[in-house]
């Protein structure tokens, strides 16, 4: 039970330096106070740790893949050190399992919960000026479902691995003798974790907005989270039933997906992508929200075209449900269907482009501070634009015939998911780190990590576009010697990328041990989370905060004496008794 003690002294409301005993990290002690906490901030922090560990595991697997591909006949997985672990399994089987687990862990355990569950849990209630999410217990159970799902994945890894690719395509997944059931059960459970998080956020945003915060005075991060949550609630159940049917197919041979029993594997693909295409928007939409905040705050300028950015999130969420067929252009759909899916796929690029243009317009004539989060945001815009535009090649029917299942797809996907989501996640972590832990990291180290990530990323994945367009298929353990130069370049890039990520981790962890405390408003933001202390107190706000325009930076100026941002005007705060009883529309 998370019992909190908050003194009613006035210093807690002072947006300056909190007394360290009185924030959410210190109000109760001991392991149990974390395990049974209902505090959204602690749950957010636990998610942050959890997804980081998952990312580390999946990242190391990725490095393993890249090192293996240094030589045309495969190198790394043949080496003695790896053989000592894998035993006498054929190397190519090991390779299949490594890339499968890399994909499955990255997608289900890292990217999907990264921004919504880790940053979202921490930020959504604070940005709303609320004390917590609508269903704190459900929130905690989401986290434990995540842990439980992760446990299943680990057992799959330890049992007999998984070699179906993260997509679990039938009929291979019904015949593969690896632990498909364990892994799909894990994904099924993770799906429920994701559903409950999304449900919680929708309800929180709908019913717990403070008086004065209309829909169009919400920070854009909340809009993005809301759109994401809609997808989580609407798409994930379909994945759930698909995986359940897959498990039934394996155990009872129900003959729905397995052609051996008159089933239809293409039906599986339809079911799977009906979730998994919207799922890529679960992965990228929250990143859009993070970037909207970062660009606006660090340019100290009102976001350009607020309503367009907000509506485009909803548009992406809804259009995202209509394009799943573009994964199956080569699976034998009718020509008419493929044309419709192709056209719809192109339509999704419109709201995405609206966002990019609005971010650029926000930066234009803004007073940009090149802080670590801002550098990450700029890296994001650059990489995401490439990722988005190469998606058009794959959405085009003719070119997709050539590029399907090649490294081009791999590169495109990683530009969007790593160059997009991961970079935005890192930017967000750097942006809100001082708020979460009340400690400031070394800006130099942060920018160095961003530069290494950027360079490493480009060296890793640009060659893969060329590889793919020259015909290198994905998921192969060996390749023609003519591809070696590009593969080696890509492998070296992955090491640089890995180094950059370790630098980021080091910089952040090191800051925790510094004595200097971060001010309440580190960057001069106008959203509500910057109005409470760093780290926030247990109940976020002693009094309901006054809601202002989240992108009005005119009152917030840098005070060089105290070396932090302050509001020049005294805040117009409503006394509690003046508040309307309930957040209206």
């Amino acid at each position, binding site marked *: 039970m998370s019992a909190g003690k908050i003194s009613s002294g006035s210093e807690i409301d002072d947006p300056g330096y909190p007394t360290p005993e009185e924030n959410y990290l210190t109000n109760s002690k001991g392991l149990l106070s974390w395990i049974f906490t209902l505090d959204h901030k602690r749950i957010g922090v636990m998610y942050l740790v959890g997804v980081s560990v998952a990312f580390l595991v999946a990242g190391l697997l990725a490095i393993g893949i890249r090192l293996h591909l240094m030589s045309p006949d495969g190198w790394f997985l043949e080496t003695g050190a790896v053989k000592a672990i894998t035993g006498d399994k054929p190397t190519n089987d090991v390779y299949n399992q490594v890339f499968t687990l890399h994909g499955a862990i990255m997608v289900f355990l890292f990217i999907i919960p990264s921004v919504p569950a880790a940053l979202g849990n921490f930020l959504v209630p604070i940005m709303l000026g609320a004390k917590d999410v609508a269903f704190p217990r459900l929130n905690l159970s989401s986290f434990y479902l995540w842990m439980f799902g992760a446990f299943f994945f680990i057992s799959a890894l330890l049992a007999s691995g998984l070699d179906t690719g993260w997509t679990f395509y039938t009929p291979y997944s019904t015949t593969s003798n690896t632990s498909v059931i364990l892994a799909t059960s894990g994904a099924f459970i993770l799906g429920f974790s994701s559903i409950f998080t999304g449900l919680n956020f929708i309800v929180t945003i709908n019913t717990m907005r403070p008086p004065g915060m209309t829909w169009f005075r919400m920070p854009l991060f909340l809009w993005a989270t809301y759109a994401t949550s809609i997808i989580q609630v609407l798409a994930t159940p379909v994945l759930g039933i698909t995986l359940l049917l897959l498990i039934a197919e394996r155990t*009872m041979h129900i003959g729905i997906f397995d052609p051996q029993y008159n089933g239809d594997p*293409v039906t599986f693909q339809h079911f799977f992508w009906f979730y998994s295409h919207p799922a890529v928007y679960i992965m990228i939409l929250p990143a859009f929200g993070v970037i909207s905040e970062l660009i606006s705050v660090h340019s100290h300028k009102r976001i350009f075209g607020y309503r367009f950015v907000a509506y485009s999130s909803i548009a992406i969420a809804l259009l995202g449900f209509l394009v799943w067929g573009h994964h199956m252009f080569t699976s034998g759909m009718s020509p008419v269907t493929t044309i419709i899916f192709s056209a719809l796929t192109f339509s999704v690029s419109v709201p995405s482009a609206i966002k990019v243009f609005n971010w650029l317009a926000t930066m234009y004539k803004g007073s940009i501070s090149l802080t670590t989060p801002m550098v990450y945001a700029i890296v994001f815009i650059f990489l995401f634009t490439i990722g988005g535009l190469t998606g058009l090649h794959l959405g085009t029917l003719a070119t997709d015939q050539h590029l399907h299942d090649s490294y081009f797809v791999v590169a495109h996907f990683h530009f969007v998911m790593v160059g997009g989501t991961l970079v935005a996640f890192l930017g967000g972590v750097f942006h809100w780190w001082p708020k979460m832990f009340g400690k400031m990291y070394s800006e130099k180290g942060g920018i160095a990590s961003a530069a290494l990530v950027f360079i490493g990323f480009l060296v890793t994945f640009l060659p893969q576009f060329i590889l793919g367009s020259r015909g290198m298929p994905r998921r192969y353990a060996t390749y023609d010697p003519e591809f070696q130069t590009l593969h080696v370049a890509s492998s070296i890039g992955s090491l640089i990328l890995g180094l950059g990520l370790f630098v980021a981790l080091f910089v952040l962890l090191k800051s925790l041990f510094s004595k200097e405390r971060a001010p309440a408003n580190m960057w001069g933001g106008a959203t509500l989370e910057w109005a409470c202390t760093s780290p926030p107190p247990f109940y976020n706000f002693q009094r309901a905060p006054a809601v202002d325009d989240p992108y009005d930076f005119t009152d917030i100026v840098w005070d060089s004496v105290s070396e932090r941002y302050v509001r020049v005007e005294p805040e117009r705060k409503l006394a509690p008794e003046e508040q309307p009883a*309930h957040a209206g529309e």
Partner: protein
Amino acid sequence: MATSEAGHSADQHAGDAHGHDHDHPDYLAHHFDTPEQQFDSGKLGMWLFLVTEVLFFSGMFCAYAIFRAWRPEVFEGCSQFLNTKLGAINTGVLLFSSFTMAWAVRASQLEEHKKTAALIATTLCCAMVFLGVKAVEYSHKWAMGLLPAGLFSYDENNPHPPGPNWLLYICMPFIVITIGVFLWMVFSWATKAKFQFQCAKPLFFVCLSFFGGVYLGTVLEPKVEDHAVHASADGHADAAEHAEGDPHAEGDSHAEGEAEAAGADEGEHTEEAHEAAPAEEETEEPVIELGSVVPKSGTMVDTSRDLEIQRKLASVEANSAVRDELNALERQDMNASGAITYHQTDDTSNTIAGSEEDVMRRSRAGVFFSIYYCMTGVHAIHILAGIGVLVWLLVRSLRKDFNRNYYGPVDYVGLYWHLVDLIWIYLFPLMYLIR
């Protein structure tokens, strides 16, 4: 899971030692400002959860639609194995339980605590009757080998092979629970634990109603010896004609069906099985079937494995590309060997139409039962979950937790229960009444 969050409010507060000196009532969670806000949040949350539930089932409804469109005769044929009487009774029972549930919501708003508890207990009894009837239906089908595609082993000549008593196995956990509740009731009565006795008494009757359901089911489900009734379940699309007659009158076609079914066994045995099967029908009107697709002459043995897989893919309507490829491959092969072994190339697309007599083959009939078990099984799991939350609700209503300002949990569980009911109302006609 669904509803546990809905009721997180009341017991939450007790452990909170936060220093707010507000005048929150007990049932209002600390992070809500007003009871209305709490109620609205819970209700929206519940509706969203129901949306996910609908989407969860929609996957299976999609599968149903796809396979019924592809094999209408299989669905119509197999549907006759379902006992419409039992399905109708279950529909009525669930509808009635929805009514008592809605009434319970009203009673809790009016603070009629006794009535609320009685109505919730009635709802629980209905849920148990439903499960009891379902247990009879399931166990009877299992005994007959009417199982999902891979396990399907129905034999028309011997529809009731000796086997384990499935009904007893299903009843086992319920018997244990009933005895447990009975002991609890007696114990709490003996020790004069008044509240515990109050809880145990209705729960004992709830447990008993499961066996009421089982009794109802066994009375109405045809007996093992009663072959005449099974005639209606013989799986022919036109079974109505000989529904009253003896199924073995059509012994010949049955024998064929037998052979076919044997031929459709696991891949490795297919060849031998086919050799053994009486070949008259095969030569007259060859029909390409999954699992029975094996080259008959030696000419195609080399490519047979690939071809077999291809053929499996091709027999699915949508895979037009695969079928084209396959046809091309065959033509190639024929040209190469000079021997035309397959004259039924076109039949790959015709397996669906005009093959009423092999509806009951393992590889075909199974898919109906796959979908039947998936849908009704997941539905039954939802009933079980509903029973769980209803028991929780019963205890809380006996504790008089609910009042005119705080009846959210009853309302939310009610919504959930109506959805479970509604899904069954779709399942019943789609499964039982499609002939």
